């Protein structure tokens, strides 16, 4: 409630005839308290406006008891039930003139509370800004808003209340307004300092009123009532200028809704009429501001990568090897690279050795490394070459014997260590060979090693009599797991991650080649059977698992598997599903637009 309006009300009451007061007196007690509540609210709002330096006070001419038509105060009385306090129960608009007030008081059956007086030209404040919780101050000076809030609760506010009751008492018992009363209300006007949120933006404003933002294709619904002060007494409201937004305005519910069609900034208008405006064709008008965001999906471009680049490789790739079991892999350039015509930095490798070994690698080149597409390619193929050459020697009959022993007794630490050492020698050897290959390339090109930075996951899998042996080496993010549906998932390592997204380790980093480090990165499992062994780069794990914890959660793997097999009928185990797998890699996942690579033994 505007302070001026309130003082006008007081002054009006002071000047009123005995008849009016006789009626007013009938509502004594409860109403006086109600007025006190209003007074407090009013003080607070007034103070906010003062603080904003936009105090447009309405002058009322007390002597004539008339109001300036352009700056009229409208006194609104909410007829409310004693038990409910609702903004939506606005029923009356009053002009601060004698007759109407009397009528109103006579009409009211229950308690009345004056909630708001809305001046015609009130300053605006953006919807969000008026929430004091948004304004965290860290100033050393005394003009912080926290101080002001304190002042509300200090004695001066109480003093105002006391003064008000004095004023009311005096005006109540003296039928004619005296100069004394005027002076007192003038005084209280000047000494108020307090602050509180002013949530409602007045409807008339000089700057466009902000509507909430929308997005193309996303249903939009907003009740325009929220823009209005609760008791502004608006009886008719229209929103115009919505052509091409895709939104429409419901005149009876005041709801603005629809599905936005086009992105952009729009300026619809709001036309409104309040009850006290007798001319039904006269509307006041304000401009609204509406921002519609584009649908992110529509913004992604797909530009081909530069074929003339010496390190060019196809934007997508896939391979399948069908043996007793199916080994299949696919790799797809991510939307963020496609958007800029950059390269696919992921890569993979698959191979099958005649003695029954299934080999798989996936690698994710670092986004910030210039030649990481080459780095990932080098490591994937180099590792396979090395394994092909050295596997037979390393994983000989002794190895098989140890594995068999281990499968009978997994508590046997000695056997476990023997196996671990063997696996370590082979797989770390393969990774190291890959590392050296990158070094060679970097050296030939006279380019720093880190320009080829890439992650790497290697897996070797073979079925023996006792079951399956699966060994792995893992540096970086992404993941590898032995997945058994509805049963469990065994991860063959842990993702490397820093404190922030996008941070991980690469094969080119010196720290991953410290002895203790390497050993930790080599793991193996002996298992009866499984649904699938799955290797993934983080383009997939980020989207499907989100967190490291989730990577260990079998339910998440079940969801992934169901999702995958819905598009790719892997259980059929025939060699024809590369296309479907690539298609699946195109899934939409907001915020996850990295290259995606997956290798599966099923």
């Amino acid at each position, binding site marked *: 409630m505007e302070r001026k309006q309130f003082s006008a009300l007081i002054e009006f009451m002071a000047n009123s005839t005995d008849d009016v007061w006789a009626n007013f007196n009938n509502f004594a007690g409860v109403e006086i308290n109600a007025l006190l509540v209003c007074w407090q609210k009013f003080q607070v709002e007034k103070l906010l406006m003062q603080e904003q330096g936009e105090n447009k006070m309405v002058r009322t001419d007390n002597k004539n008891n008339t109001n300036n038509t352009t700056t009229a105060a409208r006194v609104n009385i909410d007829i409310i039930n004693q038990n409910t306090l609702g903004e939506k129960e606005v029923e009356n608009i009053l002009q601060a003139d004698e007759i109407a007030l009397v009528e109103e008081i006579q009409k009211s059956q229950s308690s009345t509370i004056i909630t708001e007086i809305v001046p015609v030209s009130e300053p605006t*404040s*953006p*919807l*969000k*800004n008026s929430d004091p919780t*948004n*304004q*965290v*101050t*860290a*100033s*050393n*000076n005394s*003009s*912080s808003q926290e101080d002001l809030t304190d002042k509300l609760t200090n004695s001066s506010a109480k003093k105002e209340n006391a003064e008000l009751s004095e004023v009311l008492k005096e005006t109540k018992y003296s039928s004619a307004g005296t100069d004394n009363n005027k002076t007192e209300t003038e005084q209280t006007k000047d000494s108020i300092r307090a602050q509180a949120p002013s949530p409602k933006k007045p409807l008339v404003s000089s700057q466009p009123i*902000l509507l*909430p*933002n929308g*997005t193309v294709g996303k249903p939009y619904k907003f009740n325009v009532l929220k823009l209005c002060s609760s008791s502004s007494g608006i009886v008719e409201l229209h929103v115009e200028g919505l052509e091409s937004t895709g939104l429409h305005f419901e005149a009876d519910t005041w709801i603005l809704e629809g599905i936005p069609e086009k*992105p952009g*900034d729009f300026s619809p208008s709001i036309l409104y009429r309040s009850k006290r405006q007798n001319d039904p064709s006269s509307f006041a008008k304000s401009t609204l501001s509406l*921002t519609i*965001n*584009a649908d*992110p*999906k529509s*913004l*992604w471009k797909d530009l081909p990568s530069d074929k003339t680049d010496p390190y060019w490789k196809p934007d997508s790739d896939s391979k399948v090897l069908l043996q007793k079991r199916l080994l299949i892999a696919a790799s797809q350039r991510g*939307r*963020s690279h496609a*958007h800029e015509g950059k390269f696919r930095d992921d890569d993979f490798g698959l191979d099958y050795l005649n003695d029954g070994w299934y080999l798989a690698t996936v690698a994710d080149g*670092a*986004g*910030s490394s210039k030649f990481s597409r080459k780095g990932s390619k080098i490591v994937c193929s180099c590792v396979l070459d090395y394994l092909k050459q050295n596997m037979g020697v390393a994983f000989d009959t002794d190895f098989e014997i140890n594995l068999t022993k281990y499968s009978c007794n997994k508590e046997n630490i000695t056997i476990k260590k023997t196996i671990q050492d063997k696996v370590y020698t082979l797989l770390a050897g393969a990774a190291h060979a890959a590392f050296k290959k990158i070094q060679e390339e970097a050296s030939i090109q006279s380019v720093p090693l*880190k320009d080829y*930075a890439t992650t790497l996951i290697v897996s070797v899998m073979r079925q023996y009599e006792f079951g399956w042996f699966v060994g792995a080496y893992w540096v970086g993010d992404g993941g590898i797991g032995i997945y058994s549906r509805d049963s469990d998932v065994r991860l063959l390592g842990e993702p490397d*991650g*820093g*404190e*922030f*997204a*996008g*941070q*991980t*380790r*690469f094969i080119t*980093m010196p720290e991953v080649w410290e002895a203790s480090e390497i050993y930790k990165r080599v793991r193996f499992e002996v298992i009866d059977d499984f649904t699938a062994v799955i290797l993934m780069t983080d383009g997939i794990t*980020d989207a499907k698992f*989100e*967190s*490291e*914890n989730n990577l260990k959660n079998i339910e998440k793997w079940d969801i992934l598997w169901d999702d995958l097999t819905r598009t790719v009928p892997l259980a059929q185990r025939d060699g024809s599903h590369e296309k479907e797998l690539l298609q699946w890699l195109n899934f939409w996942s*907001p*915020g996850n*637009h*990295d290259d995606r690579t997956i290798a599966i033994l099923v």
Partner: protein
Amino acid sequence: MRRLPVYLLLDTSGSMRGEPIESVKMGLQMLLASLRQDPFALESVYLCIITFDRDVRVLIPLEGLEHFQIPEIQTPESGPTHLGAALKLLCERVDNEVRKNTIDQKGDWRPLLFLMTDGSPSDIQQYRKMIPEIKNRNFATIVACAAGTKAREEYLLELTDRQSVVSLDTTDATSFRQFFKWVSASISTGNMSMGATGQIVLPPPPPEVHHVAV
């Protein structure tokens, strides 16, 4: 979902009153409009605006682009420029808001900081005390802009490296428009995968935005 937190620290001291701050607002409009056309930014960028003059306030706490609306920006008549206090508030916000990688959630991308001032810090001691704190917060980039003739670049060079300190000849609409256009381009490169200590490489600035000389 992973967010890219972007912190804008804007000087709202008395000298910014009037045309300069209006130009900043227009520049911000431009920044928003531009980012809204970048599909990655539209999904991931979260902006926070902190203003500093005599007071320091979080004008808009970290908010996604989708719902972001530019607020009213007030400037006092005159008074000091408490940039040091602003940096302190920024540290508090970053500590509270920016999500780190945990085993339960994927952390945000490394935050970005864009600072604009048209003068020099009044609370120099506090400013200098806060500089190492800011550096510890692992911003992927700290861009400091000295706007107009009264801005003192040397203070900004204490905060960030020479490639990341830029200056504007004037505080008019054109200068700020170009500056915020460049901010938008810089943000778009902010999502790169990188090692723990890598810095992002900023795109070359437009002609109105100069790198500072030695």
